[in-house]
């Protein structure tokens, strides 16, 4: 009985290996590349997490998919295109510049430009409405005296 148990224990590692863990040990370079790419991709289940950090089952599946596509020799761009074809631009954290993302990309700059223009116009208008005061020398002296008094008190 004891011998049988020992034999059973010895055999345990044979059953214990997991496909995923093996992949990791086999090719740490690929794993690093996979994580690097997965950080640029959004998990669709928990939408504010990247594919690299998400624990959702779909994210695990997609990481497996990305890993396998890399093993097939696809470039990062090809893998991104592969995922976009299935899940749409939404999987990318950085949205591509397209006709309907123009507002997103350039809207803030347009707003800044308009605001700057508004400020410039406002300043110009103020210069026109507040005329330069032409003071006589006496008035100048009086003003200086008044200001001095105020400083002393």
């Amino acid at each position, binding site marked *: 009985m004891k011998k049988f148990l020992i034999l059973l224990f010895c055999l345990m590692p044979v059953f214990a290996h997991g496909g995923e863990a093996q992949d990791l040990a086999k090719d740490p370079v690929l794993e690093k590349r996979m994580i690097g790419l997965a950080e640029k991709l959004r998990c669709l289940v928990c939408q504010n997490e990247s594919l690299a950090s998400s624990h959702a089952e779909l994210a695990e599946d997609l990481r497996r998919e990305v890993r396998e596509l890399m093993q097939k020799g696809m470039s990062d761009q090809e893998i991104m295109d592969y995922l976009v074809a299935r*899940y*749409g631009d939404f999987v990318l954290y950085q949205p591509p510049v397209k006709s309907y993302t123009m507002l997103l990309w350039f809207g803030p700059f347009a707003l800044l430009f308009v605001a700057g223009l508004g400020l410039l116009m406002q300043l110009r208008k103020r210069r026109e409405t507040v005329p330069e005061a032409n003071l006589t020398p006496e008035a100048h002296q009086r003003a200086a005296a008044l200001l001095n008094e105020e400083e002393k008190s």
Partner: protein
Amino acid sequence: MMRFLLPLVIFIVLVGFLFVGLGLNPREVPSPLIDKPAPAFVLPQLENDKQTFSPADMKGKVWLLNVWASWCVSCREEHPVLMALSQQNIVPIYGLDYKDKAEDGKVWLARGGNPYVLSAMDREGRIGIDYGVYGVPETYVIDKQGVIRYKQIGPVTPQNLSETILPLVAELQKK
């Protein structure tokens, strides 16, 4: 006058944007697969794993592909709607049992009834990835040429069935 009008206009525009933006459901990500051919697959059937099912078998018919799983909570909500639809014989419903064990799937159908002509087993969820599945249940309306025409994300309800899915099916069947 302008002093008050301008901030008011900006405020109204902002409220408009927020009203529309906050009303959108962030879980509904538009699928890029609309108007594209349904991705091909060959999968074993749930009830009879010796036989396979492929979307190519469905050429010439308008059909629904419903992605479900025994572990999916919203599928319970959807199930009676699909049961009622299947009894009306308007459009055949095919199932894709997604990341599920065959035994669990069979038990689930035995318990709640089976609205599907048949279900294909996507044990690993790989076909799900090809179809861009990210939240079960999802339902695809596929036309006679095998092109995806609509994707319902989340449960099919009597409302979206009568307002969107069935009118589309009727239109596609006429073509």
